[in-house]
């Protein structure tokens, strides 16, 4: 070891460095390089496989979320929208707003006799 070197010397300790380099010297350089290079192609293909598997899972998850959202939306539709005109009229004049909504939102046309009977002279 060189005598002049201080503990916090900013220069590398060449003697120690050389000794450590010998101690850590790797063997079979060419074999190692060949092995890594042989893995390079499979790694690229492997990364595409990983991405593809992620995409498949992502699509499945998106479909599940869409289905759940659609079902939740159906369940949360207001009940008044499904009431028929007859049901709304039975509720009485206080719920005349409900009758109007039933006429607008109803999926089938109201019975004319019911409409006319609801008209008061």
């Amino acid at each position: 070891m060189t005598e002049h070197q201080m503990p916090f010397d900013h220069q590398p300790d060449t003697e120690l460095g050389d000794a450590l380099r010998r101690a850590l010297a790797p063997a079979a350089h060419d074999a190692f390089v060949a092995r890594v290079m042989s893995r390079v192609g499979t790694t690229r293909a492997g990364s595409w496989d990983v991405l593809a598997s992620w995409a498949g899972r992502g699509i499945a998850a998106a479909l599940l979320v869409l289905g759940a959202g659609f079902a939740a939306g159906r369940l949360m539709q207001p009940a008044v929208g499904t009431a028929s005109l007859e049901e709304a009229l039975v509720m009485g004049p206080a719920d005349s707003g409900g009758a109007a909504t039933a006429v607008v939102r109803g999926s089938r046309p109201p019975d004319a006799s019911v409409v006319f009977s609801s008209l008061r002279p």
Partner: protein
Amino acid sequence: MDRYAEQARRVARAVLRDPDDADDAAQDAFLSALVKLEQYDPRRPFGPWLMRIVANAATDRRRRRSVRSAEPLDPGVVGGGPRPDVVAERSALSERLRQALAELPERRRLAVVLFDVEGYSHAEIAGMLKIPEGTVRSEVFHARRKLRTLLEDWREPS
């Protein structure tokens, strides 16, 4: 890759005593660097960026070494020739240095190898290991103190 292979393997071996484990870690690092190549800033030197990946790969492998076995190099390719450190005295000294290195904390081992063997600056090592530059100096100092003692003791009898 050819240029950095030995350096990467030495740095990995500073973390992992087993040379096969170290080679696996170095290989992981090269493949990881290939995947992350878009993240590399070409205005900065390549070595520190790569060695940071190597150090991380070696540390990761050391953590999960207990559940995975190392992949040995193909014996047909390796051949049966003598390793560079087979000369008796150097081989014995190298073994003692490896033992002494293994007794150091991992960060200290990396710091002294990156500084004294690979020639990186304190600032570059600080970036690689994500620690303050002063801590790098301290780690190199403590590692050198122990390793120098070993070298001096080794020199005394001869």
